[in-house]
């Protein structure tokens, strides 16, 4: 895949930055003239990945969340959300619908939503080292 544009955003894992993160990515992706629905899906994917950094990766501490958004010459968007938090023991189990290690405020639906809204989802994680979630989504050309 050949990337023709890229943006990088780094911020501390305060929950107030969840909305900043999804709005920023949506603003960058807007140059591809996505539909309202595509944009809503992108925002939701980012919200899920960033919230997981806030809630799970760093739990009661604050760490850095790094987002890279890349746009390819074939209108594919690749979003990488990276933390250096606690990591995931078993990624396949974590991705199952309704699986959560969180409190009753969590539904265990984050990965299911990210998977359903992206064309491709990859999770790289090492316990104690951190997690990268890489999501790709093609923005359909209109008109």
């Amino acid at each position: 895949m050949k990337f023709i544009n890229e943006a990088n955003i780094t911020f501390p894992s305060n929950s107030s930055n969840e909305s900043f993160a999804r709005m920023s990515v949506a603003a960058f992706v807007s140059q591809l003239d996505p539909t309202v629905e595509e944009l809503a899906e992108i925002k939701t994917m980012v919200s899920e990945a960033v919230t997981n950094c806030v809630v799970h990766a760093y739990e009661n501490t604050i760490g850095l969340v790094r987002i890279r958004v890349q746009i390819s010459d074939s209108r594919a968007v690749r979003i990488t959300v990276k933390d250096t938090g606690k990591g995931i023991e078993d990624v396949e189990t974590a991705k199952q619908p309704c699986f959560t290690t969180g409190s009753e405020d969590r539904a265990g639906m984050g990965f299911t939503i990210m998977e359903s809204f992206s064309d491709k989802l990859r999770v790289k994680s090492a316990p104690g080292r951190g997690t990268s979630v890489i999501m790709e989504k093609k923005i359909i050309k209109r008109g």
Partner: protein
Amino acid sequence: MLSYSVDDDILTVFIKGELDHHTSSGLREETDKLIDRFSPIKTILDFKNVTFCDSSGIAFVLGRYKRMTAGGGILELTRLPRQVATIFDLANLGSLIRIT
């Protein structure tokens, strides 16, 4: 982020704005306070003015569902914008909760 009306033991909670992890804790507290105060037979969550919702919204709804049904009450959802409906569909909330 919330207003409400009470009529004949039915509590309607009107939610406004973005429902994510950051906003959901306040919303949960306020909604539960209203449920405790009015002990409604039915609580209706109105999503008409919700502009964004992620998985935190699913847990919010499931939590209020458990709370209402534990006391023999009913929870209903109404006026879901398309983005909200899509998220709730993925969690199959409609199999558990009446959506109007």
